[in-house]
């Protein structure tokens, strides 16, 4: 339990809190089970620390019922980061070998390939036609991230188009174990694999001045999670939405004409809560859509709601993931705009999976379609 000693104060504060974040927790709202409130998860850790409970499969299962969305922190006066403590609790579960069985393949694939998709990821990357950019000398690294490469090649191409339009010279990584930031290993609890991935990548990141990515979780990994694990990484990170908003503001890029359709924007948790980036996407939206054609969820900005794709819940409990997504989509169905727009490949994939009939798009893909040549 020494790994939890650092969080002893967080754990006791949550244990004796009147569960004030419960209404904001997407897992709690979906399961309606006291056991999975952020407060009770921390309470379980208090019982583990005091020896009143032991880490077994039943206890471990609860620690995997966290989407890592940080909405609990948004409503916590003490700003307690429950997901961070859950990451540590999952590491304990893996050490004991009591993690959910559904994760085993995920963990072994990452251990072997350094990414959650295995060999197929490199093939997908090669199909993007970025060979001449691999490891080239440049100030900027474009880190596409495994989910974008594997599921959204068009988004990858759109990001490249944006950078080219702005005249930004950039390099990419090409090896299969350099295409993923390590987040999937972190959330699975396989922290040794995460840390070795982080060290491997860190040695490659230092040569760049800026890392650009369209994946908020990759950026959170580089600038928050690596340092939390003692792996200092100082290269500046920039999300594509932030970059695109800056380029629009400075008129280095222009939008041809706005879309005729309407859109609703979903704030990705890590983008909004780790980085506080929620105005930049809206500035892009205002360039892409008429003002009266943009809708808002009532849970938005830094108090948004998870898409259902966080914390590896789609792997450990797909039904729970879908239930969270359904809750998120309630207001979308009510407002019935033409498309759902986001700025995170995991969110996009989660919405696609839950309802393929919804046109879910990434901001940058939309922007790339309307760039004024």
């Amino acid at each position, binding site marked *: 339990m020494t790994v939890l000693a650092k969080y002893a104060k967080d754990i006791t504060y949550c244990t004796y809190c009147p569960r004030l974040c419960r209404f904001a927790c997407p897992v709690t709202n979906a399961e309606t*089970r006291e056991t999975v409130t952020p407060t009770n998860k921390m309470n379980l850790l208090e*019982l583990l620390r005091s020896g009143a409970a032991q880490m077994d499969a039943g206890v471990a299962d609860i620690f995997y019922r966290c989407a890592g969305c940080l909405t609990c922190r948004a*409503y916590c006066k003490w700003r*307690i980061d429950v997901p961070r403590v859950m990451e540590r609790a999952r590491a304990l579960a893996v050490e004991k070998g009591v993690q959910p069985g559904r994760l085993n393949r995920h963990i072994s694939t990452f251990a072997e390939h350094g990414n959650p998709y295995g060999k197929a990821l490199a093939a997908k990357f090669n199909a993007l036609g970025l060979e001449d950019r691999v490891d080239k000398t440049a100030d900027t690294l474009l880190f596409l991230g495994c989910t974008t490469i594997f599921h959204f090649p068009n988004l990858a191409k759109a990001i490249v188009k944006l950078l080219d339009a702005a005249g930004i010279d950039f390099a990419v990584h090409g090896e299969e174990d350099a295409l993923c930031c390590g987040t999937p290993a972190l959330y699975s609890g396989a922290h040794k694999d995460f840390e070795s991935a982080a060290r491997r990548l860190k040695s490659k990141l230092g040569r760049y001045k800026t890392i650009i990515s369209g994946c908020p979780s990759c950026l959170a990994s580089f600038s928050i999670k690596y340092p939390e694990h003692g792996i200092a990484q100082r290269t500046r990170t920039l999300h594509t939405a932030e970059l695109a908003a800056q380029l629009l503001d400075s008129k280095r890029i222009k939008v041809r004409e706005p879309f005729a359709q309407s859109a609703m924007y979903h704030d990705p948790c890590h983008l909004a809560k780790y980085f506080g980036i929620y105005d930049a996407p809206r500035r892009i939206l205002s360039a892409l859509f008429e003002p009266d054609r943009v809708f808002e969820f009532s849970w938005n900005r830094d108090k948004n709601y998870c898409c259902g794709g966080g914390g590896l819940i789609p792997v450990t409990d797909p039904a729970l993931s879908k239930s969270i997504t359904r809750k998120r989509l309630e207001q979308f169905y009510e407002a019935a705009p033409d498309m759902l727009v986001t700025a995170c490949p995991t969110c996009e994939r989660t919405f696609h999976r839950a309802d393929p009939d919804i046109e879910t798009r990434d901001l940058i893909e939309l922007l790339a379609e309307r760039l004024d040549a």
Partner: protein
Amino acid sequence: MDNIAPSQLDKSIVARLVEIFGERHVSVTAVDRAAYSRDLWPRTHIWMSGGRIPHPPDAVVWAKNEEQIAELLKLANKELFPVIPYGAGSGVCGGALPLFRGVILDVKKMDRIIEIDDVSLTVTAEPGVIGQHLEMELNRKGYTMGHFPSSIYCSSLGGYLAARSAGQLSARYGKIEDMVMSLRAVLPNGDIAETVCSPRSAAGPNWTQMFVGSEGTLGVITRARMRIYPYPPSRLFRAFTFNGVHDALESIREIMRAGVLPAAVRLYDELDTILIGGKKEDSVETPINHDPEPENPVKKVMHEVSSGVQNILMGIPKVAGRLAEHVKGKCLLVLTFEGVPEMTNAELETSVRICKKNSGRDEGEEPAKRWWENRYNVSYNQSRVFHQGSWVDTFEVATTWDKVEKLYFAVRKAVSPHAFIMAHFSHAYVHGCCIYFSMLSRGRDQEEAEKVYDTVWKAAQGTAVRFGATVTHHHGVGLHKAQGLKRELGPLMETFRGVKTVMDPNNILNPGKLGLPDWGE
């Protein structure tokens, strides 16, 4: 989990529960039973600090509809086991504790907002909806229910009704019993009853109110139709300070007597003004910091001084309690007004005139706005107290105006030898007011902590009963205030027990609460 007793429920009963609720919605696992072994009664926190789980249920079920609840209650009558209805478990009196094991009936899956009626201004909803979700949805559509308990983030509509809740804006919008128009409930024998929905009825006793405050002992509330209001177009704020509570209480009394209906009326006594009500940066507490970064040195020193004072209180509460009796200072009165501008302006004007007449110093809008922005924050402080090894609890008494001030000083005097005590006055009426005491103390070990806890509560409740005040304005009774209720009801307690026996002859619903018979009694 070794320290949790195994479920004693017969396997055939568990199998029957699975038939009723489905496999996913029945649990006998240790983690679930541990999670439902406590509510937010501070005494359960004392237990938790020693890793004790003395009251685990045998099983937890999650109902999706009232037919399942009816089947469960019929089964409980046949097989004889207790059923404890459970909303969000935010009660602070042990009302949801499975004292005699049995089955926890969680109703949070019944959380639909069924209908908003714009013509009649009502909302019909299920008991499991969390208060903040309901209010957010109403706000989004241009309404408010006006119910803002400090627990709104962690409590449910069913819990509000079952425990007779009151919110911070109760002077304007009323308490939960004023808001409910009708409800549906599953009776202990499995019958489903629904009360008539009408602005008023003279058809005998009020059966809606029979279930309000019954804390799951007479039936399981499954639906309620509540009054709502258009979202207020105007919200005004004002604060005053007074030398001591007397002139401030007089001001509140006169404001209410003048027919003004402020949304919030909150008067903090000298200590509460220093520690809670007057704090300038209540929302900007220093986060728990694992990776210290350089911070503003002035802020850091100020924070440490403030924390130091609070740590002394937590470390030696009895000494602090005695010293506190001699504190003289300002008392902060917060007033807010909601409604159409013509009305709020007039109410504000009248209130200002009354406060000034009673020597109140006009502090402008800022302190009241600050309270509004931080109105739920006080509950977070509980964590810090328990983390320091102390305990904190609150006592909300109410009485008529002729006794309010005397009762306030008497409770303080009775409690201060054993605990640090401060108070604010809220939920004002034309005829009286609620006093909300916060009491903080500790023991050298858990045994002593519980002993001190009992001593403090005996002194506090005993004083309230002696004054003819009620021992609970809005927290309910549960287990914690059962003795106080018995003393308050006198011979009517036997009548209440008779009602319970007629409605629930096998005593299956939440036994041992509200002073009603224990399981097997």
